[in-house]
């Protein structure tokens, strides 16, 4: 009885409910968006009532907040941090810089499409979205988790070569040096 279809479903529902209500955020402040996270966590908007709490290291985090424009150097570090997180993990892209490169779209070292390098679950528009928009993004993520559709980790694992090829396009030497990602 244990591993037949619907009992597994029930377990998933409960697990997703728990994952929905307790999201530990690793804020990777790459750009101007990091300043928005402070008001969302503190008293005026208080993300903690939704169960959202900061996590100190990628090993303990569930969500990776990419909060701004990504240069070639920072994309390498973001990918590395993403790979260090534990498996049901999600990514939220902040602001227009992660969506289409924003005003730096034609700069020689700014990444235009984040989801070519890492699977992004939720984008929040705005040239640095206000805390309300950030909370809205979190709620959207919670809905995705509840419906079980937030499987960025699985997507990354399935077409790993494609992601690695894209990453190697902008950082050939670095990819050779990075430890392998096989889980």
């Amino acid at each position, binding site marked *: 009885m244990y591993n037949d279809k619907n009992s597994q479903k029930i377990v998933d529902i409960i697990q997703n409910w728990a994952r929905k209500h307790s999201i530990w955020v690793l804020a*990777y402040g790459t750009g101007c968006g990091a300043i928005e996270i402070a008001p969302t966590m503190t008293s005026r908007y208080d993300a903690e009532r939704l169960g959202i709490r900061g996590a100190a*290291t*990628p*090993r303990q985090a569930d969500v990776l907040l990419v909060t701004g424009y990504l240069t070639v150097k920072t994309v*390498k*570090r*973001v990918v*590395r*941090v993403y790979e*260090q997180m534990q*498996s049901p993990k999600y990514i939220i892209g902040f602001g227009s810089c992660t969506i289409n490169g924003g005003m730096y779209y034609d700069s020689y070292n700014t990444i235009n499409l984040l989801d070519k390098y890492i699977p992004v679950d939720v984008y929040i528009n705005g040239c640095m979205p206000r805390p309300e928009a950030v909370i809205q993004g979190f709620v959207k993520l919670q809905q995705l988790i509840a419906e079980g559709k937030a499987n960025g980790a699985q997507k990354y694992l399935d077409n790993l070569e494609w992601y690695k090829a894209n990453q190697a396009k902008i950082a050939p030497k670095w990819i050779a*040096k*990075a*430890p392998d990602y096989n*889980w």
Partner: protein
Amino acid sequence: MDMLTLILVIFLGGAIVTWLGNKLNSVLGDLLFLAAVIVPSGLFISGITVGSVTTLNALGLTLTWGLSPLSYLFSLVVVGLAILLAIYSVPFMNGKDKKGAFYFNFTLSIMSMLGILVSKDWISFFIFWEIMTWSSYLMVILNGKEVQKVGIKYFVFSAIGAYAMLMAMVIMNSQLGSFMLADTFNNFQQMSGTYQILIPLLLLVAFGVKSALMPLHVWAPGAYSNAPMAYTSVFSGALSKMGIYGMILVMVTMINQLPEGTLIRDIIAWLGGFTAAAATLWAITQDDGKKLLAWSSVGQMGYIIVGVAIGTPLAMLAALFLVVVHAMFKGSLFMVVGAIEKQTGTTDFREINGLIRKMPWTFISALLSIIALAGIPPLAGFVSKWMLYEALIQNNNYILVILLFFASTAGFLYCYKFLHGYFLGQEEPEWDHVKEAPVGMVIPMLLLALGTFVLGTFPQLLFNPIDNALQYVGYDATGGLLWTDSVLFSQWGNVVTLQPILYAIISVFVFFAIFLFVKGKKGKTRYVSTKDISTSGEIPKEWENLTFKVNFFQPFERAIEPFLKRQIDKYYNAFGNGLEALFEFTRRVYTGNGQTYAIYAILFLALLLLFRVNLFG
């Protein structure tokens, strides 16, 4: 030729033959050395029965030897360590120079230790004591480093101890007319008042030097860390226990009869407590494994001395138990340091790290001995610590309990520093070549470590010999009163039952180990090397060593800064300079021309005449 003399002669002969054998070729030397140590030890265990006395009158003196229950307990320690260390030192010493000298001194010191334990009269006691000092001195300066600073310091202090003992013996003989231990102890009262205080003090100085009591401990760290590691296990495991053996004899027989005996006892107890605390603080600041363990042995001796000085049955039980257990885990720890020195060539914490996966068995034995050293429940260290604290509280010297407690809590710091220093931290490519220590070294280590494990839950294996040793010395039986098999009582009736605790610990540990293991069974829990850590996305470069080693307890050291500045060495240096000034003055007295000597002679005669009246009047 009685069994005892036979054993001692075999030791002596064995030592010389091994030294010669080593001159021919080293393998023969090893075999001879093993034979020279193991055969007599085996004979000793099987052949010798408690109480058999043999007399030997050589060069006009009657030397009587015999094994008392108390010395039987100590001989257990000496013989056990000797056998294990012999097995350990053969692989330890191959490839090193001066092997012959090492074997010679090793066997000699084992013989001398057994001799001390066996001797029933002060003459043989002193002879063996001197041989022990000599052999250990030669061992300390074996590798020739820092001979001046460490060797001489060790020898000067041992000489002070030896002369104090000699003086006490001569006075006793002149007063009581016999050299026999038993006689001196029994009719101790007949001596006049001042001698009754002088002799125990002199003997305590002699034994205090050997067991590194605080003011006399200066030689210990240098000597322990400078001798080759195989020998230091015996050095700190058994040799310093001879000082304790002597102290127990003096404490129990002489000081008990003294009216102000309790004052001396308290002073010694406080000295022991202070040694424990100060040595632990010094151990925390050390950066070299050998020095750290040397200071920690001085600290542990402090515990034993406190137990002996308190003198209640529970405290004596704790002290004797700790004597044996300390020999075990300290011997095993020094062997661990020896194995690491052999495999990596250095024992400095700052250089080595991440050996846990390369030397797993050494790590397990180090872990078990550290847990025993720190006195954490499932292992034997806890039993002695618990009894010691109960005895101290019931004997209502409370501030000493706090001091000892501080020492043992601070002990956790250097325990962790030792383990972290060698085994944990980043795994560096420069140490990839390190392999597990040879089998001959690992087995003795593990045996001693497992010994602490067994004694942790079934202490009665050791309590029986301790019990009849105490009865021999004059305490009433502590069997039913203070302990039954694996249950400890204190005078107030508080109980610690060791077996159920061990079973609870093991069962919970196994349950949670399985709990953690099962969850990751689907292959999702994987091993990740120490280079792949969450350093905010940066990949540490090869030459970047991220291990946290230097200034390991910097904040704690800053907290105890005022204490560390006052060093005992400064007082000794000042004392030394004072002596030199004195000698300078006396040198000028010998001016070298005849007239001054003539005047001295006349002056001396005048003095003699002056005093003749009342001195010999």
